[in-house]
């Protein structure tokens, strides 16, 4: 079974996560971040998946619905969404991942599966959980935690991450949760495998002692007693924890190698299907190095950009190095460079917006500029 926790707080994503959790942040022209981990699970034949939500979860319910688009609308198992208010005694807010897991202990307990894959929802990657499970079983590990090496890890990044330290044979001997000074470059992918019985024990031990963080309070303190292994993932990981990283990982998708690693090679990334006509490139359009979803109408010029569904680019508009989300409308004779338009933004004719690659301009959902 799989459990996805969508309660991460991401202050550095600013307005992008004001009305939604990072799990449902639009990504790559057509997806939401959570689609990637969901697809990893479904592709690895995990069909019993619980999604724990925190505040602002209505976009999660909207997006996932009955789970049919992920083949998870099943009579046995399937998709279960747990809104926070459904748990009376927490008053609707979880203090941390352990408390969130505790709140669905009943669901975990009665599942038919032996193992649990526990995941966060702010990283996108294509990983075979079957291979990771094999690694877990070969090592007779109690817990296996996935990580990747980030050679460019900065101090700023590190404060958003959990870093692992492993012995040469892969055993984890130290964990640092959001350290100010990076201890190594092995970034925990917020993805681990363990038996559900062990998970329930760890969670229970945390919560009854007033601790709420699964990794810090549950796993770190048990590194001696348990066999905890790190599983290194070598593919592309889009860790979305700030406007800058969001922008950078979207732009990276214009590189075919990144698309192959993230989207096309491992099988389909499943997402909510919508009924949109194909995109029209008018005779005056000029589109170069772009990802373009369906339902767009392009009369202007677009370069090095990602266009989500139903975007309209009018005549004389010039869009460069930008991310335009669903339903936005860029008016005539406008100029956009290094800009992120959230959903349903309107850029009035003649306006210009120019951000910087390391500080892209974000326009909030529904705003008319």
């Amino acid at each position, binding site marked *: 079974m799989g459990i996805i926790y969508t309660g991460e707080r991401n202050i550095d994503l600013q307005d992008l996560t004001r009305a939604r959790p990072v799990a449902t942040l639009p990504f790559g022209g057509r997806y939401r971040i959570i689609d990637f981990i969901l697809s990893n699970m479904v592709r690895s034949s995990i069909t019993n998946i619980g999604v724990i939500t925190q505040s602002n979860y209505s976009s999660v319910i909207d997006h996932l619905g009955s789970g049919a*688009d992920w083949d998870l609308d099943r009579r046995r198992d399937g998709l279960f969404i747990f809104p926070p208010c459904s748990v009376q005694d927490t008053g609707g807010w979880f203090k941390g991942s352990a408390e969130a897991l505790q709140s669905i202990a009943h669901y975990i307990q009665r599942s038919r599966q032996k193992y649990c894959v526990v995941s966060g929802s702010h990283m996108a990657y294509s990983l075979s959980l079957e291979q990771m499970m094999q690694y877990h079983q070969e090592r007779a590990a109690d817990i296996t935690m996935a990580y990747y090496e980030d050679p460019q890890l900065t101090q700023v990044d590190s404060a958003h991450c959990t870093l692992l330290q492993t012995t040469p044979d892969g055993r984890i001997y130290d964990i640092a949760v959001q350290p100010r000074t990076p201890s190594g470059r092995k970034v925990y992918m917020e993805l681990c495998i363990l038996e559900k019985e062990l998970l329930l024990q760890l969670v229970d031990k945390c919560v009854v002692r007033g601790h709420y963080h699964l990794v810090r309070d549950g796993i770190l303190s048990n590194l001696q007693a348990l066999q905890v292994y790190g599983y290194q993932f070598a593919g592309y990981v889009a860790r979305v924890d700030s406007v800058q990283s969001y922008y950078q990982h979207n732009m990276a998708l214009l590189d075919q190698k990144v698309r192959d690693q993230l989207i096309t090679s491992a099988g389909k990334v499943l997402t909510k299907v919508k009924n949109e006509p194909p995109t029209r490139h*008018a005779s*005056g359009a000029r589109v*170069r190095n*772009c*990802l373009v*979803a369906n339902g767009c109408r392009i009369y202007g010029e677009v370069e090095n950009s990602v266009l989500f569904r139903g975007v309209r680019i009018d005549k004389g508009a010039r869009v460069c190095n930008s991310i335009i989300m669903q339903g936005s409308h860029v008016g005539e004779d406008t100029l956009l460079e290094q800009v992120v338009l959230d959903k349903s933004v309107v850029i009035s004719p003649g306006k210009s917006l120019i951000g910087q690659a390391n500080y892209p301009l974000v326009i909030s959902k529904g705003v008319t500029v």
Partner: protein
Amino acid sequence: MGTKECVAMLLAGGQGNRLGILTKDLAKPAVPFGGKYRIIDFTLSNCTNSGIDTVGVLTQYEPLKLHSYLGIGQPWDLDRLVGGISILPPYTSGKRGEWYSGTANAVYQNLRFIMQYDPAYVLVLSGDHVYKMDYSKMLAYHRDNGASVTIAVIKVPMEEASRFGIMTTRSDGRIERFDEKPEKPESNLASMGVYIFNWSVLRTYLIEDAGMESSSHDFGKDVIPRMLSMGERMYAYRFNGYWKDVGTVESLWEAHMDLLAEPPLFDLYDPSWRIYARNPVEPPHYIAPTAQVKGSIVSEGSVVYGQVEHSVIFHGVYIGPNTIVRDSVIMPYAEIEAGVELYKAIVAEQAVVTQNSAAEGGDGKAGAISVYSSLALTRNYTA
């Protein structure tokens, strides 16, 4: 089983042999159209948008893909508790089985299906036309006239009239004469193959027709003329929008070019009349720095490295570098290899066009349409 005011019977069993290799192992209504649709989507979306929620789809020829495409009709909102979409293939009953031998016979064999809903009206449709039509308006017209049969008609160019069922009407729309494919047409009001019948009238004539050995059991050839000769109140309903029979390679190609006109002759982006389809799960399409795409329609999952002009590119298509694709239709998951130049071509689903096969296909300048498929590499049609 609940009662329905109007049940639609959609004839989707045609072999479509004038589409050649495009329908080698595919029913005509399942032929791709318009960048992401299949031909039957237009008729089904018309039903949905007209509030008709009970549709029997009569299939016979190569239905595997069509059946799995239709499923229980969820993309068209036709997965209803009562009614919805029902697939009606030929079947055996008692000791014998019968293939559908004509359009009227196909409906006749499924009288029992219609009876379940005890409708006042039956709408007969065919699954190989591209158009947007509000059947509820036609139904209102039918009721207002107190007609027993109403036939949708469209003005066609006089020189093409002999390809259609042609009607002569009085000024109030009542049909005086109906000629199926007349050599010397009296008018240019052509039947669109869209009929509304009072259920009781249709049932009577179909049962009678089934007993007539000389009949070919076809609506246009047998049943409609018979009804007219018996003096039934039959009216023509004028339709003024875009309508295209895409039953030939030429008309299929032309209809695609009509989508590309600016503004388009047939608009896929009309929010008041959405065209529903089963949606593939594909990433956004990618236009490379080396590509040039103009005056074209491109769908998801495609990757374009070459030059695309005035063409329709379906989903999952690959267009390699140094290619030119002009005035062409590239169907789902086809591949155009590097260096290929295509003019006025239709490339079928999953076909691969290499430089060799393209050379055989001709350059389209003489007016011929080249068709490429994975079965037979190339074939020419004169437009």
